């Protein structure tokens, strides 16, 4: 997942959004979210995400054992009060699983949020300036996008260390260019609309124009992009942990758990299988939500196009 989902979602939603779309009356702006909720897939996505988030957030509270407590022989199958058996160090799989989601979630959310804000700002500024600044910014974005996200994260982590902020910054920095491209691409057609010219003539300050007029009109593609980026951030954070690059080798973390317990998949699969399933459900959920929003955006504008 990378540039191509930018292209795909952008193309799908934008191609239709940009075709003959009138400025929607103010009341319709927030309907996108609500309308998308009516779609089956968005609902399913929300359920999945909600379920996993609940697990991650409240899991630590209900975990029966401490995550580093020695409860039995390593890799014991379920039994004896341990619902999912033990892991590579004889720790309770269930407890570690319940403890292991929060880190991933928080890191992914924070890094995506930072990346979104950064990317949005850059993309809007670039689109609106329409001059040399636009070119410079976009070239800078191209340079960063020349590397796969995981590669930059890998190099950064090995350079500086396996600290949380390193991973967050690495992912945020590599998310921003992709978001910037979408934001810029979505904003450009809207800029060409008359009403922008009209509000400029009316003397509104640039900031108000950007914030007040531009932004709501690109909400659709941005929300799609946000969910796509979130999905990918989760994947990269988990992959980094899987490659062994987490800051606590025995910390409860779904990605690390998979790596630690991978070897016994044949006989005691739960240690690796539970986190695999959790990550899968989470990423599928965010993907569904994003897809639901995209379809709704496309649907709205299709309707409007027909009017």
């Amino acid at each position, binding site marked *: 997942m990378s540039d191509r989902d930018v292209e795909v979602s952008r193309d799908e939603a934008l191609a239709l959004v940009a075709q003959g779309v009138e400025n929607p009356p103010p009341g319709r702006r927030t309907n996108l979210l609500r309308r998308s909720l009516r779609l089956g897939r968005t609902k399913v996505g929300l359920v999945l995400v909600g379920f996993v988030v609940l697990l991650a957030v409240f899991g630590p509270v209900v975990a029966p054992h401490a995550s580093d*407590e020695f409860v039995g022989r390593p890799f014991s199958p379920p039994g004896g009060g341990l619902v999912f058996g033990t892991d590579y160090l004889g720790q309770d799989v269930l407890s570690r699983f319940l403890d292991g989601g929060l880190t991933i979630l928080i890191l992914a959310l924070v890094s995506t949020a930072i990346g979104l804000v950064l990317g949005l700002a850059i993309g809007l500024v670039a689109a609106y300036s329409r001059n040399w600044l636009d070119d410079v910014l976009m070239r800078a974005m191209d340079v960063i996008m020349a590397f796969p996200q995981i590669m930059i994260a890998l190099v950064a982590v090995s350079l500086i260390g396996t600290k949380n902020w390193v991973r967050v910054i690495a992912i945020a920095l590599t998310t921003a260019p992709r978001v910037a491209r979408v934001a810029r691409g979505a904003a450009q057609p809207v800029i060409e609309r008359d009403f922008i010219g009209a509000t400029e003539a009316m003397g509104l300050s640039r900031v108000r124009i950007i914030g007040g007029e531009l932004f709501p009109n690109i909400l659709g593609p941005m929300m799609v992009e946000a969910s796509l980026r979130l999905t990918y951030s989760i994947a990269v954070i988990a992959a980094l942990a899987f490659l062994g690059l987490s800051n606590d*080798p025995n910390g409860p973390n779904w990605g690390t758990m998979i790596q630690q317990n991978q070897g016994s998949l*044949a006989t005691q699969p739960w240690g690796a299988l539970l986190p695999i399933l959790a990550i899968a459900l989470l990423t599928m959920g965010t993907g569904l939500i994003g897809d639901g929003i995209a379809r709704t955006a496309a649907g709205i504008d299709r309707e409007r196009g027909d009017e």
Partner: protein
Amino acid sequence: MVIGSQRPTRGRALQMTESGGTRWQLNERPERLFDSISRRNLLMGAGGVLLASGLAACGGSSPTPSAGGSTASAGTPKRGGNFRLGVTGGGSKDMMDGQNIVTKPDQARLMTAFETLLVFDDNYQLQTDGLAESVEADNPTQYTIKIRKGIDFQNGKPFTADDVIYSLQRIGTQGNGLTGYAATATMDIKHLKKVDKYTVQLPMLSPDSTVPQTLASYTFGMVPVGYEAYKGDPSTQVGTGCYILKSFTPGQESVHERNPNYWRGDGSPWFDTVTITDFNDSTAQLNALKGGQIDAMTDVPAGQVNAVQGSGIGILNSQTGGWIPLCMAIDMPPFDDPKVRQAFRLIIDRKAVLEQVGNGYGQIANDLYSPFDEGYDKSLPQREQDIEQAKSLLKAAGKEGLSVDLHTTNGAAGMVELASVFASQAKAAGVNVTVKNDPNYYGDSYLKLPFSVDFWGTRGYLNQVQQGSLPNSPYNETHWPPKSGTGSNFESLYKQALAETDSNKRIDIQHQMQQYEYDLGGYIIPYFNALIDGYGSGVTGLSPSKGTLNLASFGHGYRTIWFS
């Protein structure tokens, strides 16, 4: 402090000694590893001349070396096949050098082509089964090495005294940076003398009874005059051993072909080729073994053994004297206070560690190394976890609520896990341990850290001291011995022991040295690990070994194993 060899009693017996420290608990000791049944005279020259000393290895010739997994009694060897071995721990830094290693793949490759003058057998006893006919001490400061006649190198050139001299001098040259360099400290390398084509005289700078063990250590491979480490040309890797290097891509694979002119003339070696493949991690290795893509692997993770045994894979479980210590630098805070060291040694729950990290495969240890050495002091009471005592020691030292970093890496199985388990155990004593897993561990700060994890293989006591417990030892993580006060005469005791020809007296000296280490040392040694290796059906000839290397010294240089 005198503890002596009292009968073990159950229950606690805490008493104050004169110096104010506390005597350790006495508990019944777990058993069996250290029984000394009989002593054998190990080194017989061709004329039956016994070595005066130098038997610092070998606890005893107990009949069953360890847990099991032997395939030795499986009939006559057969020729043929490509033996594929999977190893972890390597990478693009892989090397091939008859006298140097850094990682296990390096060990595996060294053993294909290079042999030593003397060898350790599976009971970690010295044997004259190697390239030398005899190694005798003429007097405490001179040895005579007689090599067998009729041995050729893999390129056809005869193995002679000149090669022995070149080999020893290569190791003894500091600039070469070879693994065995420190062990040559007592040898007068410059004055090695060729007596005749098959005899070399080795003068010593100071008396050293451990020379035969040194000569048996696997990094003392005999190489031809002019030999250099691998730099891209396989034909430079000429040894006396069973397999000739055909190709080598560091970090990936090496292929070795059978040496048709191998000197033993008993039909060995049996495989046509040996292929050694580097793996990223043990999961890939295990999958490959199960899938039949490799025939053997090193270091099956302890937690997988049960799973693996069910699927037709053989397990070679060798109880060795190898250890994974937690190392406290005795000259760096907070470990410069002996109370803190003692406290930490009481925090650790050795049984739990053995279960969690070794999955039960191993023997509980007592913070002392070289369990097979006849000088190993079995009378020292076995330490047990005592959190209360630890807390009070820390309090007395003014270090309640201590926070420390524990550095570790994936250098050997269990290093990272041990750190994690200790960190979680330490919480009970109010100590906050942060585990730092550094892939670049053996780089900048290695040997300069206050608290770290390391790994060692089986070694005799004096050899081990020389490698890790003296001020100029190459791998002295704990910065032992103390510079002043009790224990500061450790090095002079060592030198005395080296020179001592009466083994009883030497054992006494060793006991004294071990007493110091037991009371004040920087090592926390929870258990002696078992080397657990896996092999596919069809591989025959493997039997457990107490030695340092996996797969029973890689099938004794890939020589005593075959496909059935």
